[in-house]
């Protein structure tokens, strides 16, 4: 479980996150939704440690990320998998080497064990015979799937997905959505997805957090989304569906 308590973050005096509170449960696919520029990406960057909040608590199952030392943070980060908007695959490495990267870096597996794990992860995301291709030779959807394979290689406890459907056709988006849900349930991990794709939210979301102008205005189950009573959220949903 990940808990956010009173997260504030400002850039050059401009408040981007204003006392954000939220809780993301284990084994559930949680969504952070909101308009562009609302603070979703900054919130995710704070959660994974790419940005340091000005104040607040980010609690990973009892471990306050902001109070951990360098080595404790390093250890915790190995429990985090992240799927980036553009895939963020290493250009100079093949698909196989991309997925094998965290295994080679942080484990003492031998070559055949690494290869077995890489093939297992690639098969899990329904990719075959792509081991020796480079990121520049594969499609956007495949890049996302390789990104998921790399994210799950180390058996993470927490999975972060930043706009997993951006730039994908509806069919591929559906495949990626299904993969994220399956992996969340199969590995019983805490998954947080940043998105403004309302269709994905209704299809996959167990728990929704609505961020508006840097504030967490609403939090709840997707079944309550249409009857939230929050004017900004209602407008956002209406605009997305329109």
């Amino acid at each position: 479980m990940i808990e956010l308590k009173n997260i504030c973050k400002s850039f050059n005096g401009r408040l981007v996150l204003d006392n954000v509170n939220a809780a993301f449960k284990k084994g559930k696919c949680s969504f952070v939704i909101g308009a562009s520029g609302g603070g979703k990406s900054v919130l995710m960057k704070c959660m994974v440690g790419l940005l340091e909040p000005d104040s607040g608590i980010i609690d990973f199952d009892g471990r306050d990320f902001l109070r951990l030392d360098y080595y404790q943070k390093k250890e915790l980060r190995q429990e985090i998998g992240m799927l980036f908007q553009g895939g963020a695959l290493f250009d100079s490495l093949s698909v196989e080497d991309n997925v094998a990267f965290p295994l080679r870096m942080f484990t003492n597996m031998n070559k055949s064990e690494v290869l077995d794990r890489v093939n297992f992860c690639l098969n899990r995301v329904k990719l075959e015979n792509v081991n020796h291709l480079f990121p520049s030779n594969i499609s956007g959807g495949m890049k996302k799937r390789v990104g998921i394979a790399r994210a799950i290689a180390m058996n993470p406890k927490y999975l972060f997905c930043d706009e997993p459907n951006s730039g994908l056709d509806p069919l591929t988006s559906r495949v990626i959505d299904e993969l994220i849900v399956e992996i969340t349930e199969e590995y019983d991990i805490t998954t947080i997805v940043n998105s403004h794709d309302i269709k994905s939210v209704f299809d996959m979301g167990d728990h929704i957090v609505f961020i508006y102008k840097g504030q967490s205005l609403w939090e709840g189950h997707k079944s309550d989304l249409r009857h939230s009573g929050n004017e900004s959220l209602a407008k956002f949903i209406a605009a997305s569906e329109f």
Partner: protein
Amino acid sequence: MIATKFFEQFGRYLLFLRSSFRKPDKWRMFWKAFFTEVYKMGNDSFAIVSIISTFIGAVAVIQFGSQLQGSLVPMTILGRIVRDANILEFSPTITALVMAGKIGSNIASEIGTMKVSEQIDALEIMGVNAASYVALPKIMAALFAIPALITYSMLLSNVGGAISCFFSGIVSVDVYVQGLRMDFDGFFITHALTKAVVSAFLIATISSYNGYRTEGGALEVGSASTMAVVQSCIAIIFFDYILTQLMLYK
């Protein structure tokens, strides 16, 4: 205002160096990256260094030879002047400036592209010390490859001088070689290699730093690459002056 900006950047550069010079997470991966970088830097720069060095020596012979012609100074001195100029200044400085353009821009654009395409973020999130992982092998490889290229340049520029003597007929090759062997001071090599190592460090660290702080897109990667070359060149010239003053002026 400019001074504040300079010290702010310098402080950030020092912090970047501190995070870069950390023990690698996995030595096996570090050595693999190190040897790849040494090969890439050496192999890719070999041709340009060969061409430049040959012509540096060739032009030096003509320039100095034209000034000595008609004077009472014996022409054997030509080889000595060209040798010392090549070893002390031309090879270490000009090669370093060319390397700043070639290797420096390559490092900055490579790391800059990794930064804007979130590859650096991916490393950080995995728990890898990204600065150390991407920059340290390049810095260490540059400390090895650039002095090696400069040593090769010192040798080849003197050969270029001999080729120039052969074709221009300013002096015979024998007289030129006699001059090359005259009153050799081994400390000049120490001085040249000190400059080479300092230049290599400046090129690799300044370029890595500029690449690492890139934010935005393709345009910013280009700007970072240009900035890396400009800053490296200024730093090389500045330290060239300082080291020459410290080591040669007695």
